């Protein structure tokens, strides 16, 4: 379990414990996937096996109500863009996620994001800080192309200083080569 998603889980748990009319009133459905009323069963996928259909049904507490950015079914809940070794190219698989964030940012006048670039631990700390910055800038440019104004974004770098995975393995390095999208009010 990584650090980003822990607060998301916590928010989920809290919202499952009971939502007030007040919080429901603030919910805004931008993605079509999130709504506080008449939500379809989600979080369960059913697949037929030899024609024997398995019908999924919503578990108690699965009705998501709250900040759409924290709805696990929404692309807004996806916050990390991973990069190949020595690369700063935002892969096309991240387009839906970045489009969702771009439209959320454009819809909320006060919303602001910090794009936190990261690098793996090999090599100079200052050089890695600059490499992490390149990854943060790549995501910033992708969001700018999608219409997000510069004043709503800040690209910064943690370099190799805040690894998500502290192991010295190729898998850990891949996990650490990324940019996280973090909202300023979170």
């Amino acid at each position, binding site marked *: 379990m990584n650090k980003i998603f822990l607060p998301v889980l916590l928010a989920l748990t809290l919202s499952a414990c009971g939502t007030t009319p007040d919080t429901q009133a603030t919910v805004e459905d931008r993605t079509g996937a999130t709504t506080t009323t008449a939500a379809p069963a989600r979080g369960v996928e059913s697949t037929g096996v030899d024609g024997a259909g398995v019908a999924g049904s919503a578990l108690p507490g699965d009705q998501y109500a709250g900040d759409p950015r924290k709805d696990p079914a929404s692309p807004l809940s996806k916050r990390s863009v991973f990069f190949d070794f020595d690369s700063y190219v935002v892969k096309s698989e991240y387009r839906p996620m970045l489009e969702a964030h771009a439209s959320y940012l454009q819809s909320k006048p006060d919303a602001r994001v910090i794009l936190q670039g990261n690098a793996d631990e*090999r090599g*100079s*700390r*200052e*050089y890695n*800080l600059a490499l992490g*910055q390149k990854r943060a800038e790549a995501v910033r440019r992708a969001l700018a192309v999608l219409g997000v104004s510069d004043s709503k974004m800040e*690209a*910064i770098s943690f370099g190799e*200083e805040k690894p998500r995975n502290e192991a010295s393995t190729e898998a850990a390095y891949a996990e650490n080569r990324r940019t996280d999208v973090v909202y300023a009010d979170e």
Partner: protein
Amino acid sequence: MLRVVLFFPLLCLALLSAPFSAHAAMEIQVIGGAASKFAVAMVPFQAAPGQPEPALARIVGDDLERSGQFRLVDTSGMQQPVSPAQVNYGVWRGKGADAVVIGQVTALPGGRFEVRFYLLDAIKQTQLAAFRYTITAAQWRATAHQIADIVYEKLTGIPGAFSSRIAYVQKQGQRFELRVADADGQNPRTVVRSSEPVISPRFSPDGARVAYVSFEDKKPVVYVQSLRDGGRSKVAAFKGSNSAPAWAPDGRRLAVVLTRDQASQIYLINADGSGLARLTRGGNLDTEPVFSPDGQFIYFTSDRGGSAQIYRVAASGGEPRRVTFSGSYNVSPAISPDGRNLAYISREDGRFSVVLHELASGQTRVLTDSARDESPSFAPNGQAVLYATVQGGRGVLGTVSLDGKTRTRLSESGVDAREPAWGP
């Protein structure tokens, strides 16, 4: 807007009020050995009751040995003269000594001590130096380092660097401490304590301040802190990342790396945060600036040529010139105090080593054989390079002589030390 200080309290300790660390201090370990130049007999000084440990002659001997330029003559079982007239030069010559150091510690009222020492030429049978100090117990090690500096300079003709200091970052769990210690790693004092990373400490040319990068504001910000009273200020906290501080030789300006105009670029800024001016341009990555000793040039790392290489640009601006050409990863330049040599980290076959590069000839020499070396910096006398490496899974600091033949480890058990910088 960023109120993280409330959630991540950072204690900024004044140097003078910081309690001396109870941790075991760093150890010296001479790994390799050069053909020693000078054979010195460090005769144990006549001791006074209640004098601090270890003995002065021991600290001086450790200093000299660590430099790789001295061999210590065995003094066990020998007479302990306290004045030049008592020295039997023939005996010391017979043991191969080129020089003899003798001395005496006397207890004074009020817990003070008088230290006298003589440096004698065993061949010419003459006195090379003689000094007397009146000190407190707290000045014990500093006095030993001064004696070592005098012995070193008289015998090599080069000023010693034993009285200088180093800065480094220590990580213990999720706690980060910026520490300042004596050049031998002893007497460490914590000057910044934080739950967020601290990197890139750099002493001001007069040693009175330290610049560093702290992540306590949830992003890299450059601070300058007084080592006298612990007071500090943000020098660069612009939009984006702020990092890689480097002092100009006059101590008034710094080069820093900012991303306020998007790509990591080098800027000059006054030490009070005023007078920002951009130095490098283009969409490439430029970082790790360092001033030449005359202040005329800035060496830095850039990927503008397609791989990480070291470049040089005039401090007044202009077109950068490439300095390193071999390999695909040469980073973290440091320049020797005489401006003749560059030290940097080079990656070869996945190993990161310290390389010495003579600027006039372009000749290079790999100084280390460890695999994960980082952050080289020169001793104030230019005779050794301090660097960080990884040993047994944790960060340790080491020094290496310019010929690569004498290496030492300044290590403390159970902690991770990194980001060293050698200061005045």
